[in-house]
């Protein structure tokens, strides 16, 4: 088991290197720093001097991969790749366009993101699993049919609609909670209720349908028939036998996103004015702040890979066939 986790961790290294190389290629090879400078400066102010100055301020005036002028190891380290990409491995993300340290900014914004995402995640999982279990329990009845119809309709509605509609109705018409913003400490709950509720509702449709399919697949299995042949009530069959087994495929999709909860929800945070990583990313994209986007790509990949490893671990907890091998 331990060897397995160590192996997975080792396997993560080449993946991260791949991610790093890919982002490097995307940000520095597809377009040269000169292109970016021209774009950032705007057409009117483009002069060779302005471009040079722009590049120098951001450290983009070095060679990409190999600095033939630098002495010794500097040939490798005194390059854009080393400065901007390789150093991300040690948590050095450089500075944003506004001159702030990105790493510091990220640290400060993780908590607000988590404050929205964690309750959203837990509540959403709880609601959808219960709903899906109920649908599977009443399978092939009118309740199941209309439940599925409701799910399909709900998943056909744009997530933007849930947000805009929620804000309009709850905050503007009913004036129950503030429309957007974020507070310090416990006061934050007033700002969190709406984004969490909207997040849960917008996720119900697709997740419920997926889980219902998983449950129905398990319902047809032989061990369920055995459980019924024992004379167990249907509720026991579902909660004790079916749920435990169905949890294994459900875990695949669920555990992997847990680390990524830190990344925040892009749209939600932006709409509700929550100062998390999601809105940070969006602002960076809108302002074309390449350094921030690059950093978020890397962090996102790291969190995803951690999620993959967690998935493996959670499998082995849920499934004795893996745990005991």
């Amino acid at each position, binding site marked *: 088991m331990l060897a397995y986790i160590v192996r997975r961790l080792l396997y993560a290294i080449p993946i991260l290197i*791949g991610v790093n190389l890919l982002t490097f290629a995307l940000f520095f090879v597809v377009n040269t720093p000169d292109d970016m400078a021209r774009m950032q400066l705007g057409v009117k102010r483009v002069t060779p001097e302005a471009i040079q100055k722009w590049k120098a301020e951001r450290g983009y005036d070095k060679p990409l991969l190999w600095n033939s002028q630098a002495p010794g190891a500097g040939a490798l380290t005194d390059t854009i790749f080393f400065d901007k990409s390789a150093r991300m491995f040690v948590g050095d993300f450089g500075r944003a366009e506004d001159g702030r340290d990105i790493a510091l900014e990220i640290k400060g914004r993780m908590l607000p993101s988590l404050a929205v995402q964690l309750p959203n995640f837990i509540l959403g999982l709880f609601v959808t699993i219960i709903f899906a279990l109920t649908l599977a329990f009443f399978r092939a009845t009118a309740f199941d049919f209309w439940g599925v119809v409701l799910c399909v309709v709900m998943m*056909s509605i744009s997530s933007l609609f849930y947000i805009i509609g929620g*804000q309009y109705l709850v905050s503007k018409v009913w004036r129950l909670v503030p429309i957007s913003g974020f507070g310090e400490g416990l006061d934050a709950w007033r700002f969190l209720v709406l984004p969490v509720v909207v997040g849960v509702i917008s996720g119900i449709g697709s997740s419920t349908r997926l889980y219902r399919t998983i449950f129905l697949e398990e319902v047809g299995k032989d061990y369920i028939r055995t459980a019924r042949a024992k004379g167990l009530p249907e509720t026991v069959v579902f909660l004790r036998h079916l749920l435990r087994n169905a949890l294994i495929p459900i875990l695949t999709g669920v555990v992997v996103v847990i680390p990524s909860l830190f990344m925040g929800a892009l749209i939600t945070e932006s709409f509700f004015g929550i100062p998390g990583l999601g809105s940070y990313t969006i602002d960076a994209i809108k302002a074309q702040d390449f350094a921030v*986007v690059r950093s*978020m790509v890397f962090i996102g990949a790291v969190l995803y890979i951690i999620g993959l490893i967690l998935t493996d671990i959670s499998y082995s907890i849920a499934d004795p066939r893996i745990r005991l091998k």
Partner: protein
Amino acid sequence: MPFQIVILWSDVLVWLLVAACLGFGFVITRTEHLLAAWRRVGKSRIGMAAATVLMVFGVIGLLDSLHYRLRLEGEADKPTVYSIEVLSVLDTVASPVRTRNEKTYSAPFATRLYAKETIDLPGGGQTRGYPRLKYGGAHLGGDEARLPADVARKAAMGFVLAVLTWCGMAALVTMGVGKREGVGRSEAWRRIWQGETHFSWNALLMTAGGLMALILPLLSLAGYYHVFGTDKVGQDVLYQVLKSVRTGLIIGLVTTLVMLPVAVLMGIVAGYFRGWVDDLIQYIYTVLSSIPGVLLIAAAVLMMQVVIDTHPEWFATAAERADLRLLALCFILGITSWTSLCRLLRGETLKLRELEYIQAAQAFGVSSWRIILRHILPNLMHIVVITLVMDFSGLVLAEAVLSYIDIGVDPNTISFGTMINNARLELGREPVVWWSLAAAFAAMLMLVLAANLFADVVRDAFDPRAV
């Protein structure tokens, strides 16, 4: 010629897609298991109802994919000059709603603007008030009180037209069914409505009836009123909805099509050959899928924007630039979304290659590529078809979100995303400007819901376990 045909890259792909569908249709008629699966789709009432709705969207999208530029009136001795504006057949058909722009917002069926302005009184002097619209309800003249009656009358006329058209259509279908099954018309009629036909004509007729009852009154009104209102620059919202359809369809279809060959090839090759090829392909898709989708798209779109902005000389018209950007978005979405299909196909291929008929072929020394083509690919087709239809709705929804973050289509391209994005800013206004948003969401819901329902039916029909 009074016009010059313009072939945008996306048009090429759209019509290629149509050709591919026709080709695929031909293959289907000759391949029994595919035909059987599509017959199951045809038998499903929900499936046919959804397909009817999708067909309407499809026709709108196709009309919008035939582009041309009008010749500008000029002196005879000068070289012909074509308008900078690229139009489509849909634009021409919808020119009443396209050209009749108001000054700014107006509510659906309004005769006056939504904002107060200073109006010059005919007798001199000025007053603050809601000015009369240039086009909306202009035929009423000063008699604005007649509006409800006029709307009702025109809607009723449209409805009557819809009923008549529907009756004609139903008669045609009945005759066709009667001929095909060799029964009389009344018997054919009974069979259609009892659901005893092999094809769900009843669902098709019902949906078509519903759609016509909705669309024809709207159309008969659209010439006189802004049925969905107008937006900030006074453009008719109905026109925007119509234009958004093509964008949605392209994003939903072309994206899948772009990634399909890569995903299928890589998935099968990885699963069949195993070894280092498998390791390499797995590595590639793990790397790609470990970057959160939105961020990868954002990064790629940002870079694409830089490329486009630094090479203005590549594009003759704004339409071409917007078009290329749309296609680039499709490619980027495709690159980021092929990994899941690839993984799925790899897993299936791994299972298939252990099957005995593959081993039987290997025992004959059949070459690997031939085994892949003859034995593996046909047995994976259902997954490909299911993916194609299942991904569509997700992509249409994703477009709206991406456009909101400014990494979607070109701001000048009309799409559901840009409509929502523009209208969202006006929600804070008092009173609320709701129609743009409502129209975009409603149209999108219709498209996506139909696509989702259709996808469900297709999945059930193609899933080998379900048979």
